[in-house]
């Protein structure tokens, strides 16, 4: 190399070593600064831990399912922290086990929606033209049907069980994700590094998986977090009208539904599942908003 090339080895440089952060590291650092988002995250971690270790905390068969009519409609006490319901079952145990269902439905339903909707959106955005038109018009038709109605229709047609519930909620939120991913892919697709990848001979598959998707992920993560909340609400709603998880399996929505007859004499039966829903949704929304701020490149200095 001829000497006139200015290498930067000879210049003194600011201490850039040691602060090599990937963009995800950067996102985490920004998220950590957001107190509300961290509260949301901590609540979610607690909820997830409770759901995962539900069986260790309270036995499903013995505590959550088994009826004990002698002990019905008890208020909170040392034995039953959150009281008992109209069949004498421990509400705390039922909420934890119900949380399992709610979180699972939420995550799996969003997973289905992101996977299918995301793929469709990515294809539509990447290839454009007729493919785009075809996919997105189909999504528009989907969007014309209120998602809860669509979910009701699917569950009614396939039968009310856990799997169909997840499927129904998942399918009904596909168009939303397709739209978000498409918009996101369109923005990323126009950036020069995609052209650069093409210029070095990268295949479409490589370009989509390696260059577009990682850069189009941010809005999906935000939407997904908020989407879990929506899915949990939908589950509760469907269970409330009897289209959710079959009894006696505990679910927050059906617990609310069961307790509403006793609203006056034993309000705790409805209060605690209701609170569980509210806290979960709130935590997810706090986290989602925090993620949105942390992922937004416009806020980056």
């Amino acid at each position: 190399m001829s000497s006139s090339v200015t290498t930067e080895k000879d210049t003194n440089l600011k201490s850039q070593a040691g602060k090599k952060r990937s963009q995800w590291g950067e996102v985490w650092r920004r998220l950590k600064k957001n107190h509300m988002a961290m509260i949301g995250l901590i609540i979610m971690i607690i909820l997830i831990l409770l759901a995962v270790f539900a069986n260790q905390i309270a036995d499903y068969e013995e505590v959550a399912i088994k009826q004990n009519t002698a002990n019905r409609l008890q208020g909170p006490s040392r034995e039953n922290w959150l009281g008992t319901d109209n069949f004498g079952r421990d509400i705390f145990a039922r909420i934890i086990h119900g949380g399992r269902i709610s979180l699972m439905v939420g995550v799996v339903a969003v997973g289905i929606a992101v996977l299918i909707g995301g793929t469709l959106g990515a294809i539509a955005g990447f290839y454009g033209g007729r493919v785009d038109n075809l996919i997105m018009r189909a999504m528009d038709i989907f969007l014309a049907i209120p998602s809860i109605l669509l979910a009701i229709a699917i569950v009614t047609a396939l039968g009310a069980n856990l799997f169909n519930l997840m499927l129904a909620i998942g399918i009904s939120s596909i168009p939303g994700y397709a739209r978000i991913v498409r918009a996101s892919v369109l923005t990323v697709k126009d950036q020069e590094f995609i052209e650069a990848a093409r210029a070095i001979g990268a295949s479409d598959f490589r370009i989509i998986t390696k260059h577009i998707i990682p850069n189009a992920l941010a809005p999906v993560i935000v939407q997904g977090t908020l989407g879990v909340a929506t899915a949990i609400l939908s589950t509760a709603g469907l269970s409330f009208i009897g289209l959710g998880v079959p009894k006696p399996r505990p679910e927050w929505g059906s617990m609310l539904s069961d307790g509403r007859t006793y609203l006056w004499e034993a309000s705790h039966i409805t209060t605690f599942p209701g609170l569980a829903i509210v806290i979960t949704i709130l935590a997810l929304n706090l986290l989602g908003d925090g993620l949105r701020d942390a992922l937004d490149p416009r806020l980056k200095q």
Partner: protein
Amino acid sequence: MAESILKVKGIKKYFSTPKGMLHAVDGVDFEMEKGETLGLVGESGCGKSTIGRVILRLLEPTEGEIYFEDKNISQLNKKEMIKLRRDMQIIFQDPFSSLNPRLSVSEIIAEPLIIHNIVKKKNSELEKEVLRLMDLVGLAKRLVNAYPHELDGGRRQRIGIARALALRPKFIVADEPVSALDVSIQAQILNLLQDLQEELGLTYLFITHDLSVVKHISDNIAVMYLGKLVEKAPADELFRNSLHPYTQALLSAIPVPSIKSKRERIILKGEITSPIDPKPGCRFAARCNYAMDRCFKEDPELTEVGNNHLVACFLVEEKANN
């Protein structure tokens, strides 16, 4: 005579827009020799970047042929094209959007090597090659795991150059490679490009709107206006003896950082006209101070007037005839 490396013939690239056909490139011919730098200048929207991308087949030409080392590459299929990418590369203008923000410096530079199976994935050979390339473009070793967003424009542009050089190409389209950089950094990158050219025998198609940069770096300069070449000549000849009224106005419009040279300035009327469904006739006629009736009816052809100097203007043609 040095051997020809690239020849484009009658290149056209139209884009369909809601308002009509946009003639981004409308019949461009030129030839380049091995080791030469051809500067392609013009104002925004004249189609200069489109040409660069059509030559690399990042955009498909609407019409016309591209010969690289005497091989017609306008007909190559996807697979053959990928092989050709080893010989033809591009350096982009924007050092920010041309690097994937999710990849580290080494991942960006290694990507072409992995795609073309030049070195096997994740072995020491790959790392050695990445470090060699970083050294070649003057990037310090310790930046190997850094991410683009941590670096300034000049260093990012060096990464882009290293990526382009990874495949050891013969021909590089440099699309405004220094426009986004500060002057002191711009000079560093220009010197780097010149050093690399000497060392590796590269041929550059240097696209820019900056006339002082193009004069400094080019052997030959082609001036573009609304999708057509209006003049092409060796760099010195063009600056000494520009013939096309547009070139003359363009050259006179450059602010010169000197208080001694008070040049006569030609101020053009109006602004660039729309490249959508252009009317026949010289594209520049509407703004030209010398336009004649004929200029609004016929298209002037790019013709040689001696000294490798080509110009597309009826005025010049008529002067020569008289």
